C-alpha cells in the first residue's frame, strides 16, 4: 500500500534551481532513506514534501498523501496533514519540546487536540509507559536525559495518529548508543507505516534498510535497495561516501610505547567541587593517538584542556619538562569560531609567524602536505569551507611544532567525505612527525578506527 507519492519534486529560488526533479514513493512498512552531505538538497526535499520550506524557496511537482492530492507550490495545504497523517520528528528534541510544560501534557495535548481522543490523559500515560518513560511525565524537558527527550518527542510527534513519519537528520550530533535508540524508535514508526529519513549517517541507513536515494548537489545520483547501494555502490560519489565511513577506514599501524611525553595517575577534573569522571591512569608517547569517548557533558573537553594546562586538575600529571608551553596545542571544534572573522587568513598567519619568529618558508610545504591551495589564504575565514578552515587551523598549530595536540571534536561539523580526508591527514602527520594526539569525539567508530588507545569516561 502506498502511503505517500511524490512526483518530480523540484525546489527553486527565483530562477535558480536548487533541487532537480525527484520522485519517491513511501510504501507501508518499508523505509526510504535519503543520503547525502549538507548542501546536497536532501533537506530541501523533505521540506518541500512537508511544506516547511523557508521563505523565498518555491517547490513544484505532484504530491499525494493517502487519498489527498497536494500542490507543493502551495504549502498551506500541507498544514492539515501535520500530526494527523505525517509525523515530523524534530531534529533536536531537547530544543523542540516546550521547556515550560511537563512531559505528560506535551503528549496529552496532542491526543486531546489533534487526535480528539476522549481520554487523552490515559493514552499519554500508556504511551509513556510503553517507551519506558514512566517517570518522565511529571518532569520538564530540561530535566530529562537526551535519550528520554528523544523518545518523548517521538511519542508527541506521532500521537496525532499519523502513519507516515519524516525524520530529518535524527542522529545529528548523537553518540553511538543514542544512535541505536533512534534506530529502534524509527523502526517502531515503520510498523505498518511509512518512513522517510534524511541523513548522512550510513550506519542508520543500513539499519533501516528499504530504499536509499543518494543525493549530491541537488540531484539524485544513485538509488536502489539499501543492501545493494551500501555494498555495491555504482556512482563514484556513493563510493566516496561509503569509503568515508570510519568503519571502512584502513587501520593505522600501532605506535609502540616509548619515552612518554606525559603521564597521568589518578587524574581527574573537578567542577563545582565535584569530580567529573572516575580517576584515570595513562601515558602518551610520541606519535600515539589517545581517544577519549563518553556521553556528552561527562568532561571529555575538560580532560583535554586540563592535560594542556588550561584547567586545574586533580591527581598527578607529569609533563616532560623539556617541552616548552607552546608544544601543547589545541584544535577547536568549530573552525570559524577559532579565527578572527574580519581579517584574511594570511594576515592572521603573518601575525603568528612574526610573534613566534617562524621562518616563512615552512608554510608552503605544509600547505601542500595538507592539500590546501595557497590562494585560500587571501580570503577571510567565512569564505572558505569548514574542512579547509579546520586544515588551516591544523597548519597554524603545526607551525609551532607541537609535541601534543588536543583535538576537541575536530570533525564533528564536517561532512563525512571531508571528515575522512581531514582525519587521515592528521593521523599521517602525527605518525610522520611524532606528534602525539588526544582526540575527543562522540563517534566511537571514528575513535576505534584511528586511535592506539580509547579511554571511555564514566561520569560520577
Amino acid at each position, binding site marked *: 500500500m502506498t502511503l505517500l507519492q511524490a512526483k518530480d519534486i523540484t525546489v527553486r529560488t527565483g530562477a535558480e534551481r536548487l533541487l532537480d526533479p525527484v520522485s519517491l514513493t513511501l510504501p507501508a512498512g518499508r523505509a526510504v532513506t535519503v543520503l547525502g552531505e549538507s548542501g546536497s538538497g536532501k533537506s530541501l526535499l523533505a521540506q518541500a514534501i512537508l511544506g516547511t520550506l523557508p521563505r523565498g524557496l518555491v517547490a513544484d511537482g505532484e504530491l499525494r498523501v493517502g487519498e489527498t492530492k497536494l500542490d507543493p507550490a502551495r504549502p498551506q495545504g500541507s*498544514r492539515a496533514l501535520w500530526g494527523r497523517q505525517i509525523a515530523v520528528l524534530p531534529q533536536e528534541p531537547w530544543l523542540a519540546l*516546550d521547556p515550560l510544560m511537563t512531559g505528560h501534557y506535551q503528549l496529552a495535548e*496532542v491526543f486531546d*487536540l489533534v487526535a480528539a481522543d476522549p481520554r487523552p490523559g490515559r493514552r499519554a500515560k500508556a504511551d509513556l509507559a510503553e517507551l519506558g518513560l514512566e517517570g518522565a511525565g511529571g518532569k*520538564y524537558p530540561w530535566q530529562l536525559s537526551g535519550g528520554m527527550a528523544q523518545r518523548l518527542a517521538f511519542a508527541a*510527534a506521532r500521537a496525532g495518529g499519523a502513519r507516515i513519519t519524516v525524520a530529518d537528520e535524527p542522529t545529528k550530533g548523537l553518540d553511538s548508543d543514542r544512535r541505536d535508540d533512534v534506530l529502534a524508535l524509527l523502526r517502531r514508526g515503520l510498523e505498518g507505516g511509512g518512513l522517510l529519513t534524511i541523513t548522512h549517517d550510513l550506519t542508520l541507513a543500513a539499519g533501516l534498510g528499504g530504499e536509499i536515494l543518494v543525493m549530491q548537489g541537488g540531484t539524485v545520483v544513485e538509488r536502489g535497495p539499501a543492501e545493494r547501494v551500501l555494498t555495491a555502490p555504482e556512482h563514484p560519489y556513493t563510493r566516496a561516501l561509503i569509503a568515508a565511513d570510519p568503519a571502512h577506514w584502513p587501520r593505522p599501524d600501532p605506535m609502540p610505547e616509548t619515552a612518554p611525553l606525559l603521564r597521568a595517575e589518578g587524574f581527574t577534573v573537578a567542577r563545582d567541587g565535584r569530580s567529573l569522571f572516575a580517576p584515570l591512569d595513562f601515558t602518551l608517547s610520541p606519535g600515539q593517538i589517545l581517544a577519549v569517548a563518553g556521553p556528552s557533558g561527562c568532561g571529555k573537553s575538560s580532560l583535554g584542556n586540563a592535560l594542556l594546562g588550561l584547567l586545574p586538575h586533580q591527581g598527578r600529571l607529569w609533563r616532560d619538562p623539556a617541552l616548552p608551553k607552546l608544544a601543547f596545542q589545541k584544535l577547536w571544534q568549530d573552525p570559524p569560531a577559532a579565527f578572527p572573522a574580519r581579517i584574511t587568513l594570511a594576515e592572521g598567519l603573518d601575525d603568528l609567524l612574526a610573534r613566534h619568529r617562524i621562518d616563512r618558508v615552512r608554510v608552503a610545504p605544509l600547505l601542500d602536505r595538507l592539500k590546501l591551495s595557497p590562494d585560500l589564504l587571501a580570503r577571510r575565514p567565512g569564505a572558505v569551507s569548514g574542512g579547509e578552515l579546520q586544515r588551516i587551523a591544523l597548519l597554524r598549530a603545526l607551525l609551532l611544532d607541537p609535541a601534543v595536540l588536543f583535538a576537541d571534536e575536530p570533525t564533528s561539523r564536517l561532512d563525512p567525505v571531508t571528515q575522512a580526508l581531514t582525519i587521515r591527514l592528521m593521523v599521517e602527520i602525527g605518525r610522520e612527525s611524532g606528534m602525539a594526539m588526544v582526540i575527543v569525539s562522540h563517534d566511537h567508530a571514528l575513535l576505534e578506527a584511528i586511535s592506539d588507545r580509547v579511554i571511555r569516561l564514566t561520569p560520577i
Partner: protein
Amino acid sequence: MTFALRTLAFRLLQAAGVALVVGVMSFLMMRAMPGDMAFRIAAARYGYDLASADLAEAVRTELNLDAGPLVLFGQWMADLARLDLGRSMVSGLPVWEEIAHQLGASLQLAAVALGLSLLIGPPLGIYAGLRAGGRFDRALLVAAAALRAVPQFLLGLVLIVVLAVQLRLLPAAGHGDISHLVLPALTLALGLAAASARIARDAMAAFAASPAHAFACTKGLSDGQVLLHHGLRAIAAPLLTYLGLQFVLLAEGVVVVETIFGWPGIGHALIHAVFHRDVPMVQGTALVMGLSFVLLNTLIDLAVRRIDPREVRA
C-alpha cells in the same frame, strides 16, 4: 520550596532596607528644613495669619522638638520600628488613618490602569511578534517609542484637552463616579501598555522563531492552539518580570497623574505633604509605596517561578 524561602528572606531584608532608608531620609529632611520648624508647623495647622509664638511654643512642647538630634533620631527610628508613623503635622490625625484612606483610592486607580494596559499592550505585542518585521510590527515600534517618550504630565494634559475640553466626553478632574477614573487610568495605562507591548512582541517573536514553536505546529496543533497552549506560556514569564519593574513607573505615574487629575490618592497626598513640609506624612506615604513595591515584586517572583521553574544560573 527552598527557592520560595530564599526569595522571602531576600525580600524581607529588602523591605527592612527600604524602611531604614525612608526613615533616615525623612529624619534628615525634618532637620534640614530652614526656619523654625515649630512655627511652620503651627502656621500649617492654624494658618499663617493665626500662627503666633505661643502656638509655636505649644507645638514645640507637643512634639518634643528641643531634645538633642541623636535622641530625636533614636525616638524617630524606634517609632518607625513599632510602625508608629505618628500624626500628620497638618491635620493632627494619625498618619496610618490618612494613608489607609488614600491608599484605597490609589490602588483602585493603579489596578484599573494596569488592567487597561494589559488589555492594550500584550495583544498588540503578540500580534506584532507573530509577524515580526512586518508593517504592523514596525508601526507598533514607532508608536510605542513615541508613547514612552511622552512624559505622563504632558500625556495627561493632551488627553484632558482632547477628551475633556474639546470633545466634552469626560470630566477633566475630580473623584466620584467611574467617569472620573477613565482619564487618569488611561494616562497611566498608555505608558505602561507601550512598554508591555514591546516585551510581549520580543518574547512572541523569539518563541515564533524557536524549534519549540515549529514542533508544536508539526504535532498538528492549529495556530490558535499553539498560541494558547505554548505561546502564552512563553511570553508570560518575561511579561510578568517586566510588570515587576513597571511598578516603579506606576508609583511615579501615580504621583504625577493623581496631582493632575485631582485624584485623592497616596501620590496626591505625598505631593501635599511635601508642600506643607509634613514629614511624617512624607515618610508614611514613601514607606507604604516602597513596601508595596517589595511585596508586589515578591509575588511576581513566586509567580514567575511557577511558570518557568528552570533554575537561573549565572
